[in-house]
Protein backbone atom coordinates (compact mmCIF):
# COMPACT_ATOMS: atom_id res chain seq x y z
CA UNK A 1 0.00 0.00 0.00
CA UNK A 2 1.63 3.20 -1.10
CA UNK A 3 0.79 6.24 0.96
CA UNK A 4 0.47 8.44 -2.12
CA UNK A 5 -2.10 6.24 -3.78
CA UNK A 6 -5.05 7.95 -2.16
CA UNK A 7 -6.03 9.82 0.95
CA UNK A 8 -3.90 12.27 2.87
CA UNK A 9 -0.16 11.80 2.42
CA UNK A 10 0.47 11.24 6.11
CA UNK A 11 -1.92 8.31 6.14
CA UNK A 12 -0.19 5.33 7.72
CA UNK A 13 3.14 7.12 7.56
CA UNK A 14 2.75 8.93 10.87
CA UNK A 15 0.80 6.21 12.57
CA UNK A 16 2.41 5.00 15.76
CA UNK A 17 4.61 1.94 15.57
CA UNK A 18 2.83 -1.21 16.47
CA UNK A 19 -0.50 0.53 16.48
CA UNK A 20 -3.09 -1.60 14.74
CA UNK A 21 -4.54 0.07 11.70
CA UNK A 22 -8.18 0.52 12.78
CA UNK A 23 -9.55 0.67 9.28
CA UNK A 24 -13.12 0.08 10.41
CA UNK A 25 -13.28 3.27 12.40
CA UNK A 26 -15.09 6.12 10.78
CA UNK A 27 -14.48 8.78 9.64
CA UNK A 28 -11.35 7.79 7.77
CA UNK A 29 -10.32 11.44 7.46
CA UNK A 30 -9.85 11.48 11.25
CA UNK A 31 -8.68 7.99 12.11
CA UNK A 32 -6.44 7.74 9.10
CA UNK A 33 -4.03 10.37 10.41
CA UNK A 34 -1.77 10.51 13.42
CA UNK A 35 -2.15 8.25 16.41
CA UNK A 36 -4.64 7.89 19.22
CA UNK A 37 -4.31 10.61 21.84
CA UNK A 38 -4.98 9.99 25.51
CA UNK A 39 -8.50 8.62 25.51
CA UNK A 40 -9.55 11.21 28.09
CA UNK A 41 -8.84 13.95 25.58
CA UNK A 42 -10.97 12.20 22.99
CA UNK A 43 -13.76 11.92 25.53
CA UNK A 44 -13.39 15.62 26.36
CA UNK A 45 -13.62 16.42 22.65
CA UNK A 46 -16.75 14.30 22.46
CA UNK A 47 -18.30 16.20 25.36
CA UNK A 48 -17.40 19.49 23.72
CA UNK A 49 -19.17 18.38 20.55
CA UNK A 50 -22.18 17.35 22.62
CA UNK A 51 -22.16 20.75 24.30
CA UNK A 52 -22.35 22.34 20.84
CA UNK A 53 -25.24 20.01 19.99
CA UNK A 54 -27.04 21.08 23.15
CA UNK A 55 -26.38 24.72 22.34
CA UNK A 56 -28.05 24.22 18.99
CA UNK A 57 -30.80 22.30 20.73
CA UNK A 58 -31.31 25.24 23.09
CA UNK A 59 -31.78 27.55 20.12
CA UNK A 60 -34.28 25.13 18.58
CA UNK A 61 -36.13 24.87 21.90
CA UNK A 62 -36.24 28.66 22.15
CA UNK A 63 -37.68 28.84 18.65
CA UNK A 64 -40.29 26.20 19.50
CA UNK A 65 -41.20 28.10 22.66
CA UNK A 66 -41.58 31.32 20.67
CA UNK A 67 -43.80 29.58 18.13
CA UNK A 68 -46.02 28.18 20.84
CA UNK A 69 -46.32 31.54 22.55
CA UNK A 70 -47.01 33.22 19.23
CA UNK A 71 -49.78 30.77 18.38
CA UNK A 72 -51.35 30.66 21.83
CA UNK A 73 -51.23 34.39 22.49
CA UNK A 74 -51.81 35.36 18.84
CA UNK A 75 -48.68 37.43 18.57
CA UNK A 76 -47.69 38.97 15.27
CA UNK A 77 -45.79 37.18 12.51
CA UNK A 78 -42.53 38.81 13.53
CA UNK A 79 -42.26 36.33 16.40
CA UNK A 80 -42.79 33.42 14.01
CA UNK A 81 -40.02 34.72 11.78
CA UNK A 82 -37.67 35.01 14.77
CA UNK A 83 -38.66 31.50 15.85
CA UNK A 84 -37.95 30.03 12.43
CA UNK A 85 -34.55 31.74 12.31
CA UNK A 86 -33.70 30.43 15.78
CA UNK A 87 -34.68 26.88 14.81
CA UNK A 88 -32.60 26.93 11.65
CA UNK A 89 -29.64 28.48 13.46
CA UNK A 90 -29.89 25.74 16.08
CA UNK A 91 -29.77 23.08 13.40
CA UNK A 92 -26.74 24.82 11.95
CA UNK A 93 -24.87 24.85 15.25
CA UNK A 94 -25.62 21.16 15.73
CA UNK A 95 -23.99 20.57 12.37
CA UNK A 96 -21.04 22.72 13.39
CA UNK A 97 -20.51 20.29 16.29
CA UNK A 98 -19.54 17.62 13.76
CA UNK A 99 -17.07 19.89 11.98
CA UNK A 100 -15.50 21.08 15.23
CA UNK A 101 -15.20 17.55 16.60
CA UNK A 102 -13.51 16.38 13.41
CA UNK A 103 -11.11 19.30 13.32
CA UNK A 104 -10.14 18.97 16.98
CA UNK A 105 -9.73 15.20 16.82
CA UNK A 106 -7.50 15.49 13.77
CA UNK A 107 -5.36 18.12 15.46
CA UNK A 108 -5.04 16.01 18.61
CA UNK A 109 -4.12 12.92 16.63
CA UNK A 110 -1.40 14.84 14.83
CA UNK A 111 -0.12 16.50 18.00
CA UNK A 112 -0.86 19.93 16.59
CA UNK A 113 -2.27 22.85 18.59
CA UNK A 114 -6.03 22.96 18.61
CA UNK A 115 -7.68 25.21 16.03
CA UNK A 116 -9.56 28.24 17.38
CA UNK A 117 -13.28 27.79 18.05
CA UNK A 118 -14.53 29.66 15.00
CA UNK A 119 -18.14 28.95 15.84
CA UNK A 120 -17.99 30.82 19.11
CA UNK A 121 -18.05 34.43 17.80
CA UNK A 122 -20.80 33.44 15.37
CA UNK A 123 -22.82 31.97 18.22
CA UNK A 124 -22.34 35.02 20.42
CA UNK A 125 -23.28 37.39 17.61
CA UNK A 126 -26.30 35.28 16.70
CA UNK A 127 -27.61 35.05 20.25
CA UNK A 128 -27.08 38.79 20.64
CA UNK A 129 -29.03 39.53 17.46
CA UNK A 130 -31.86 37.21 18.49
CA UNK A 131 -32.03 38.77 21.95
CA UNK A 132 -32.12 42.27 20.46
CA UNK A 133 -34.85 41.25 18.03
CA UNK A 134 -37.02 39.79 20.77
CA UNK A 135 -36.35 42.75 23.06
CA UNK A 136 -37.16 45.18 20.25
CA UNK A 137 -40.40 43.34 19.57
CA UNK A 138 -41.34 43.39 23.25
CA UNK A 139 -40.61 47.11 23.52
CA UNK A 140 -42.64 48.00 20.43
CA UNK A 141 -45.55 45.88 21.66
CA UNK A 142 -45.44 47.56 25.05
CA UNK A 143 -45.28 50.92 23.30
CA UNK A 144 -48.32 50.16 21.17
CA UNK A 145 -50.37 48.86 24.10
Amino acid at each position, binding site marked *: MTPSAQGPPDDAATRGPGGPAPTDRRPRSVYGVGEDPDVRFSLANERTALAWVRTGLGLVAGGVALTSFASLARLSGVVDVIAAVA*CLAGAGFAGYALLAWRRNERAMRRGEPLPPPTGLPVLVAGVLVLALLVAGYAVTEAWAA
Partner: protein
Amino acid sequence: MTAPARDPGLQPERTALAWQRTVLGVVLGAVVLAAVNLRTDQPVLAVLAGLLAVATIVPAVLRPPTGGLPKDGLLRSWGFLVRVVALVGALGLLGAASAVRSLL
Protein backbone atom coordinates in the same frame (compact mmCIF):
# COMPACT_ATOMS: atom_id res chain seq x y z
CA MET B 1 -2.15 -0.69 36.22
CA THR B 2 -4.75 -2.88 34.64
CA ALA B 3 -5.97 -2.07 31.16
CA PRO B 4 -9.52 -0.84 31.89
CA ALA B 5 -8.37 1.13 34.92
CA ARG B 6 -10.84 3.48 36.49
CA ASP B 7 -10.23 7.04 35.44
CA PRO B 8 -10.07 9.25 38.56
CA GLY B 9 -11.53 12.10 36.53
CA LEU B 10 -14.62 9.98 35.78
CA GLN B 11 -14.38 10.98 32.14
CA PRO B 12 -16.48 8.08 30.78
CA GLU B 13 -19.20 8.82 33.32
CA ARG B 14 -19.20 12.51 32.46
CA THR B 15 -19.34 11.70 28.78
CA ALA B 16 -22.21 9.28 29.33
CA LEU B 17 -24.10 11.95 31.23
CA ALA B 18 -23.44 14.44 28.45
CA TRP B 19 -24.92 11.96 25.98
CA GLN B 20 -27.91 11.33 28.20
CA ARG B 21 -28.84 14.97 28.66
CA THR B 22 -28.35 15.64 24.98
CA VAL B 23 -30.70 12.80 24.03
CA LEU B 24 -33.12 13.87 26.75
CA GLY B 25 -33.10 17.40 25.37
CA VAL B 26 -33.92 16.18 21.88
CA VAL B 27 -36.76 14.02 23.19
CA LEU B 28 -38.19 16.84 25.30
CA GLY B 29 -37.93 19.30 22.43
CA ALA B 30 -39.70 16.91 20.09
CA VAL B 31 -42.47 16.22 22.62
CA VAL B 32 -43.01 19.94 23.23
CA LEU B 33 -43.11 20.57 19.51
CA ALA B 34 -45.66 17.78 19.07
CA ALA B 35 -47.81 19.28 21.85
CA VAL B 36 -47.60 22.74 20.30
CA ASN B 37 -48.63 21.37 16.93
CA LEU B 38 -51.55 19.56 18.54
CA ARG B 39 -52.67 22.82 20.11
CA THR B 40 -52.44 24.66 16.79
CA ASP B 41 -54.23 21.93 14.80
CA GLN B 42 -51.29 20.77 12.74
CA PRO B 43 -51.70 16.98 12.89
CA VAL B 44 -49.04 16.21 10.28
CA LEU B 45 -46.36 18.24 12.03
CA ALA B 46 -47.48 16.83 15.40
CA VAL B 47 -47.13 13.25 14.16
CA LEU B 48 -43.73 14.01 12.64
CA ALA B 49 -42.50 15.53 15.90
CA GLY B 50 -43.85 12.53 17.83
CA LEU B 51 -42.05 10.18 15.48
CA LEU B 52 -38.88 12.17 16.00
CA ALA B 53 -39.22 11.71 19.76
CA VAL B 54 -39.68 7.96 19.30
CA ALA B 55 -36.76 7.76 16.88
CA THR B 56 -34.60 9.51 19.46
CA ILE B 57 -35.57 7.59 22.56
CA VAL B 58 -35.83 4.05 21.22
CA PRO B 59 -32.21 3.59 20.01
CA ALA B 60 -30.96 5.41 23.10
CA VAL B 61 -32.78 2.96 25.35
CA LEU B 62 -31.93 -0.14 23.35
CA ARG B 63 -28.23 0.69 23.08
CA PRO B 64 -27.37 3.51 25.44
CA PRO B 65 -24.25 5.51 24.61
CA THR B 66 -22.27 4.74 27.73
CA GLY B 67 -19.43 7.12 27.03
CA GLY B 68 -17.18 4.33 28.15
CA LEU B 69 -14.70 2.36 26.16
CA PRO B 70 -15.59 -0.61 24.04
CA LYS B 71 -13.64 -3.76 24.70
CA ASP B 72 -10.86 -2.96 22.28
CA GLY B 73 -10.29 0.45 23.87
CA LEU B 74 -11.02 2.36 20.66
CA LEU B 75 -13.63 5.06 20.73
CA ARG B 76 -16.35 4.91 18.11
CA SER B 77 -18.61 7.83 18.75
CA TRP B 78 -18.82 9.31 15.26
CA GLY B 79 -21.91 7.30 14.36
CA PHE B 80 -23.74 8.35 17.51
CA LEU B 81 -22.66 11.94 17.00
CA VAL B 82 -23.87 12.05 13.40
CA ARG B 83 -27.18 10.54 14.44
CA VAL B 84 -27.86 12.98 17.26
CA VAL B 85 -26.85 15.91 15.06
CA ALA B 86 -29.22 14.67 12.37
CA LEU B 87 -32.00 14.43 14.95
CA VAL B 88 -31.37 17.97 16.17
CA GLY B 89 -31.29 19.16 12.56
CA ALA B 90 -34.61 17.44 11.89
CA LEU B 91 -36.07 19.02 15.02
CA GLY B 92 -34.85 22.43 13.89
CA LEU B 93 -36.42 21.96 10.47
CA LEU B 94 -39.69 20.81 12.03
CA GLY B 95 -39.68 23.78 14.38
CA ALA B 96 -39.02 26.18 11.52
CA ALA B 97 -41.79 24.50 9.52
CA SER B 98 -44.17 24.96 12.45
CA ALA B 99 -43.24 28.63 12.72
CA VAL B 100 -43.69 29.20 8.98
CA ARG B 101 -46.95 27.26 9.01
CA SER B 102 -48.42 29.44 11.76
CA LEU B 103 -47.16 32.50 9.91
CA LEU B 104 -49.19 31.63 6.81
